[in-house]
């Protein structure tokens, strides 16, 4: 066995490495810990909320955006606790169904506006994956081959519709976290203000993998979202954040999340 060379690492090198890791002078994530006696009670409420919130979030999203989307509210489902909304696929060449993933549930839907209680009741729907796309991002049903169900908030901007497939497959990897692209359009307000020094992330699309420069957004932790240095309106949001928000709400949602 080769004896390690203890002169291989000098103290200056260790110091330099530690300086690179030290980070900011403040704790990055500020948490307050409730007394243990409260934790169990809170956990009960959280468990109940976890069952209700995806459906409520989906109902809100459908109420806000259902009429402008390509899918009726009947195409909205919840799967594995996450809300999805159906989008019609006009050019389905590279969007193909994959193996079955389980059963989703449609939400109670009444988009006629007529008699209360006269809507379509919730029902189970067998779902399939989409080839090359994480089921947390998109699904297809066994019933409607022309609809892809997209996690709410993901690629939800209508201007991405024609490039939905590419948007769904685009990923940003930054220090072990995966981010998805959202666009803050000009009519939604000023571009997000960038702060701090740029840092490099890996952007993967169906066509290319590249290193891109991103920056922190004023008031939003980098663990929640960053924006492209070259185009601050391209905001990359970490998976699991702000399901309900689309670009008009996205920044306030992210700031609240912090």
């Amino acid at each position: 066995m080769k004896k390690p060379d203890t002169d291989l690492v000098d103290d200056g090198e260790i110091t330099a490495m530690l300086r690179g890791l030290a980070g900011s002078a403040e704790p990055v994530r500020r948490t307050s810990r409730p007394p243990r006696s409260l934790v169990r009670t809170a956990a009960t409420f959280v468990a109940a909320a976890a069952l209700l919130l995806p459906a409520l979030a989906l109902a809100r999203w459908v109420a806000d955006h259902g009429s402008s989307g390509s899918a009726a509210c009947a195409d909205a489902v919840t799967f594995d606790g996450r809300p999805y909304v159906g989008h019609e696929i006009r050019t389905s060449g590279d969007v193909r169904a994959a193996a079955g993933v389980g059963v989703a549930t449609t939400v109670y839907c009444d988009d006629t506006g007529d008699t209360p209680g006269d809507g379509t009741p919730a029902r189970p729907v067998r779902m399939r994956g989409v080839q090359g796309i994480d089921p947390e991002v998109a699904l297809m049903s066994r019933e409607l081959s022309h609809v892809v169900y997209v996690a709410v908030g993901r690629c939800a901007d209508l201007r991405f519709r024609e490039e939905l497939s590419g948007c769904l497959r685009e990923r940003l990897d930054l220090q072990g976290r995966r981010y998805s692209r959202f666009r803050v359009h000009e009519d939604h307000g000023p571009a997000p203000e960038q702060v701090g020094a740029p840092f490099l992330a890996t952007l993967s699309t169906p066509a290319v993998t590249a290193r891109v420069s991103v920056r922190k957004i004023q008031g939003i932790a980098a663990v929640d979202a960053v924006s492209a240095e070259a185009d601050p309106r391209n905001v990359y949001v970490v998976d699991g954040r702000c399901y309900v928000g689309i670009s008009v709400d996205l920044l306030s949602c992210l700031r609240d999340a912090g």
Partner: protein
Amino acid sequence: MLKVETDLHQLAEAASRGDRPALDDLVRALQADVVRTTRLIVGSGSTVAEDAAQDALADMTRGIGGLEDPHAVRAWALRIATRRAMKASRSERLLRLRRERHITIPETDSLPSRRTVELRSAFHALKPRLRAVAVLRLYVGLSEAETAAVLSIPVGTVKSQLHAARFELSRALTDAGVVPATQVRSKDRGAPREETRH
């Protein structure tokens, strides 16, 4: 440096007498050392480290009345941070095993070399006690005697544990095939030597 130490001493005296604004200033002045020391010992990128840093700052606020020697307030703060970090390291190990750990800490090096990545990995694999000695000596810049006082161990143990840390890091780099050594010239006040290798 002397002025800073004097300010800390005065702030500590006032804070220990119940002067709330002085306590706020004291915590603010020591925050960087406490947070970064805790983070480096537990593991950068760990949520446990960030919580431990916050706990250490809270311990300082609560415990200022018991500070015996205001002249040694920095060592006192580092002792609190180190104890919190060592305790948190046990939780951190469990979380790491369950892959529930990471958050993003913006780094100074935007694109670290393979050698640096291997060195970081090896450092995280060290025992918490060895990490603590290395951080206090080589990052914070304490002397061997000061490190020994903070960790409540003999000076000889500081020397042997720092040697053990270097040895483990060297072995990890050798095993990873990362040779020859990168020439790193430290400009940090905490680095006890400056030398390059070929």
